[in-house]
């Protein structure tokens, strides 16, 4: 028998505050879903459909047998083909290198018992509060002098500017690990380096994965520094390419192609998010809750 238990008697009492809250929660949730639907549907529509029938399913391009016409347009006109390759390589490498540099630092800051480590951690955490705009001019001037005002320079900048957040996030993870395992490894005669690689890193795996994901999302979406450092269209990242494409496409009223371009930037992250939402959300709360 599937029996639905009755709620507790007090919980059905009417409260205006809770009523408003519930209504707003459902409205915003519905709005988010609608927005997602609209984005995906519009990517398959003609401009006329987009503006006159925003909620209908797309049909014109399907009737003409070219359902992916907008995506093809965006792909070719905005140079997304090359951009996808650059972005994946750039974001992937920068993310991995960032975590590879930050993890030992976070480990040293939390588990070595060195005096002043806490203060040093705070100094690095303060870096999270520095707006990119503050460092952009000196970095641009110096890097263009050494001819690094290109994707390689951007790579270094991405890694360096991701370090404060990543170290901060990982110190939270390392701090939460128990002492006993490290001591057990010491009694077994493992060297400190070995303890780090074979005991601590596997234990902090959840934190490392979270750091990878959050940095990947952040850098995938990053636009300001990409605009500053990338001049050659062949090196454009997706969001940078989209930025340029936006002006051209709106000028030509190519709204379908434009939305398809937006969708091409958003959908990979959306897929990543659908697969990893739990990991992202738990990681985020671990990092900021402490």
């Amino acid at each position: 028998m599937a029996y639905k238990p009755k709620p507790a008697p007090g919980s059905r009492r009417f409260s205006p505050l809770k009523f408003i809250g519930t209504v707003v929660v459902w409205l915003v949730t519905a709005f988010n879903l609608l927005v997602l639907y609209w984005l995906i549907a519009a990517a398959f529509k003609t401009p006329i459909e987009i503006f006159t029938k925003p909620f209908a399913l797309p049909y014109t391009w399907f009737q003409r047998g070219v359902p992916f016409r907008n995506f093809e347009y965006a792909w070719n006109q905005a140079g997304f083909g090359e951009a996808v390759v650059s972005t994946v390589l750039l974001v992937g490498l920068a993310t991995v290198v960032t975590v590879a540099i930050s993890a030992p630092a976070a480990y040293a800051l939390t588990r070595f018992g060195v005096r002043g480590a806490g203060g040093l951690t705070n100094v690095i955490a303060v870096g999270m509060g520095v707006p990119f705009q503050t460092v952009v001019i000196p970095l641009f001037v110096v890097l263009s002098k050494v001819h690094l005002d290109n994707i390689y320079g951007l790579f270094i900048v991405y890694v360096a500017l991701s370090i404060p957040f990543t170290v901060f996030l990982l110190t939270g993870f390392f701090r939460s690990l128990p002492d006993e395992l490290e001591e057990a490894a010491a009694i077994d005669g493992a060297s400190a380096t070995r303890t780090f690689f074979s005991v601590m890193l596997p234990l902090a795996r959840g934190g490392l994965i979270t750091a990878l994901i959050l940095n990947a999302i952040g850098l995938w979406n990053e636009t300001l520094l990409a605009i500053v450092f990338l001049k050659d269209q062949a090196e454009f990242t997706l969001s940078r390419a989209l930025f340029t494409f936006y002006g051209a496409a709106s000028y030509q009223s190519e709204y379908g192609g434009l939305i398809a371009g937006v969708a091409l930037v958003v959908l990979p992250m959306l897929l990543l998010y659908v697969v990893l939402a739990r990991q992202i959300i738990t990681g985020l709360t671990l990092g900021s809750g402490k």
Partner: protein
Amino acid sequence: MGAIAAHVGRKRRLFLPFLVPAMALYVAFLVLPTLATVVLSFTKWAGAGDTPKPNGVGNYQQLLNSEAFQFSFVNTLIYVFAGGVGTFVLAFLFTMVLRDMRGGKVVRAILFFPNIVAPVALGMFLGFVFKYQPHKQGLANFILTELGGTAQKFLAPDNVTWVVTASLIWASSGFFITILMAAVDNIPPYLYEDSDLAGASPWQKFTNITLPLTWDVIGVAGVLWTINALKIFELVFVLAGPGTYSPPNRAWTLGIFVFDRTFGSNGTPDFGAACACAVAMIVLVSVLVVALRRLMRRDALQY
């Protein structure tokens, strides 16, 4: 214990090798450039091809008299304060409902989703939503006219700040709901049960339990909000302007001001002014964060 003591000693020798790469990048790409920006803010420097010449506080005087800077400054404060109040009120309202809602986890994931979208893409997308053009109305005006209203110029310079504020609240609330809900989930359920026995209303539960017991997390979230809202750039740049060059001054933020003075899409570059504005940003963020921390300070809570 000998093994452990020796181990700690050996470990300490690794402290520098482990820390130096991260520290070096941090100093080279954040600390030194920030200092350079401070120094450059006291020079006159047009940019490439020019050389910096000492200029005292000239850039700062110029900033204070610049209408563009005044707009940027006020708009940025609007985003930080109006957006912050809106986001946190919304987030608190949601925590009240989501605490004991079935399917709350799915709802939370859906609310979080705007946070994974690139701000540029979000701006372009919202550009469509708020588009004003007879016969090619965006989603908002489409619904407005379908309901019998008249189409509004949402993205006109006079309105765009508030439209962006609303969009910002919508897009960011998911992130702060997630953080606050994690803190709320850590509150032992029996405290809410005891308040049920006392007959507390949802508002009384909020003020007597949820708020005091998530206070520290709210403080951290407030700092994160301040940092992020202060550097808002892409969303406004795309929504308020044509997308490729700067929007009208009326809609600027400090982030746009720095960008515009660096790349001179509205005239010639002026690195000196850009640096002065960047220094203003960092001073503002420091003042706000310190003030917030002081405001939120209280004795550590123990269970």
